[in-house]
């Protein structure tokens, strides 16, 4: 059941929050030993919250569509009195004294927190093959990765353990698991959702957003989470709006940009075909699909890597002597970041400013872009390279190739499933919009999702 379906059923008294939560916890108990999607399950507090939600709804207190809905958060969101590991041995016993802003807002919206999902160590990688807490598996094929770093959230939603799990995205960490697990992943504009209380990987690239089964569910969650927070210095004071697309929403007024360069280079042919087919579907719905040339995204990705390597290594510098507490892939990245000169970091930030100006030109021709999310479907666990369109490519660099640049620019993007490959694995498309134009990309994504579901 989706969030919005469950919300309707709760208000029609067809189901209770206690029933929804018990069913969710039962599924977690049965499937988590295989998937390893959850690091911590909060059965007792979830039952208490569910009973409270039922009582409130019975008394006419309605906190909105998340009221009484079982959810989960990635284990980088601080939870007061509940272990928050960040998927790291360094924080294996860390118990915060406060909730993250996102956790506060979910609680205020009446959501029922069932637990905390696993992730790639320190949210610094895309496999979610965690050396300290075990391998997270993709529900579509247990021998494949769910993507990352929000791999537990992707797996949990795809397996139907919860209808929504929060993720974070520094270089694609919401959208990559959404693509590999066949669910929706929303990365809002930088500053739209508060970072307060989230264990950071990076100061200027981290974003918070939901993974859900439908686009409208993601929009409903954003409605609850968006807004200014004085505790996060990068939080935006721009007014929020209603992000939930109407049923039967139209996109005839939208110019959908289909990139002529970069985004369709070196793709698995089935991914290429599925995303182009989605663009054709947008056209059949009346949208004007326009070819656009995008600025140098490879350079944008490089700038993103320099910034991330530098900021993540600076952040974790206090732990540099505790090398045995890091997994080998994360350690390698931290060592790389420590060696980068400060001049490279500052110049990467200056290039970021220039590229932001360049990219703004795209919006003269299109209102959003449609691209693949990942160039291929989920790789096998343990694979270090993937052969994509006849070329061997590092799995991490391949998975982040089409998503990292959006983090550098801080733009909103939503990933949605758009088909299956020959192995039955999900293919993901990405819709990128102007800063703070989440409403438009969600409308386009919802219209496309509606059209796909009608087929």
């Amino acid at each position: 059941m989706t969030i919005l379906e469950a919300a309707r059923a709760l208000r029609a008294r067809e189901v209770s929050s206690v029933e929804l939560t018990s069913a969710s916890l039962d599924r977690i108990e049965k499937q988590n030993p295989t998937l390893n999607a959850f690091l911590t399950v909060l059965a007792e507090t979830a039952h208490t919250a569910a009973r409270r939600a039922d009582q409130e709804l019975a008394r006419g207190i309605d906190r909105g569509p998340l009221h009484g809905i079982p959810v989960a958060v990635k284990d980088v969101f601080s939870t007061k009195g509940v272990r928050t590991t960040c998927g790291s041995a360094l924080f294996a016993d860390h118990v915060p004294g406060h909730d993250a802003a996102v956790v506060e807002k979910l609680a205020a919206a009446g959501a029922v927190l069932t637990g905390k999902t696993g992730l790639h160590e320190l949210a610094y990688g895309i496999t979610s093959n965690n050396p300290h807490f075990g391998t997270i598996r993709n529900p579509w094929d247990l021998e494949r990765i769910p993507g990352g770093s929000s791999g537990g959230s992707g797996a949990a939603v795809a397996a139907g353990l919860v209808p929504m799990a929060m993720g974070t995205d520094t270089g694609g960490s919401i959208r990559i698991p959404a693509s590999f697990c066949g669910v929706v992943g929303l990365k809002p504009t930088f500053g739209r959702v508060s970072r307060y209380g989230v264990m950071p990987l990076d100061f200027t690239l981290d974003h918070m957003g939901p993974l859900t089964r439908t686009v409208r569910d993601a929009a409903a969650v954003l409605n609850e989470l968006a807004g200014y927070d004085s505790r996060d210095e990068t939080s935006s004071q721009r007014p929020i709006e209603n992000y939930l697309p109407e049923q039967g929403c139209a996109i005839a007024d939208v110019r959908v940009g289909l990139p002529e360069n970069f985004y369709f280079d070196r793709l698995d042919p089935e991914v290429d075909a599925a995303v182009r087919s989605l663009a054709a579907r947008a056209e059949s719905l009346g949208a004007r699909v326009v070819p656009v040339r995008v600025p140098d995204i490879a350079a944008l990705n490089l700038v993103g890597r320099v910034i991330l390597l530098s900021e993540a290594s600076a952040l974790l510098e206090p732990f540099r002597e505790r090398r045995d507490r890091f997994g080998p892939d994360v350690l390698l990245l931290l060592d790389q970041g420590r060696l980068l000169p400060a001049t490279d970091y500052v110049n990467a930030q200056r290039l970021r400013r220039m590229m932001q100006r360049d990219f703004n030109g795209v919006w003269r021709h299109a209102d959003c872009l449609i691209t693949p999310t990942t160039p291929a479907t989920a790789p096998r666990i343990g694979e270090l390279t993937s052969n994509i369109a006849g070329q061997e490519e590092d799995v991490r660099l391949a998975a982040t190739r089409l998503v990292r640049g959006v983090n550098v620019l801080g733009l909103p993007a939503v990933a949605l499933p758009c088909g299956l490959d020959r192995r039955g694995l999900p293919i993901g498309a990405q819709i990128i919009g102007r800063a703070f134009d989440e409403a438009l990309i969600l409308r386009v994504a919802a219209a496309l999702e509606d059209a796909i579901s009608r087929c």
Partner: protein
Amino acid sequence: MKNWKQLAQASGLETSEPDLDRIAAVLEDMEAKLQPLVARIPHDVEPPLIFKPEAQ
């Protein structure tokens, strides 16, 4: 061209020779791609990192 392995050793990085090779290869590649971009930055472009003295 920087000698990344010597830089790593000088900075006290304790890691295996194969890892050192991997680190050096990545950084060399990144530096080679970054420098032509840096050469094109106009002098008046500032990084988007603003210090606000009134902020807490």
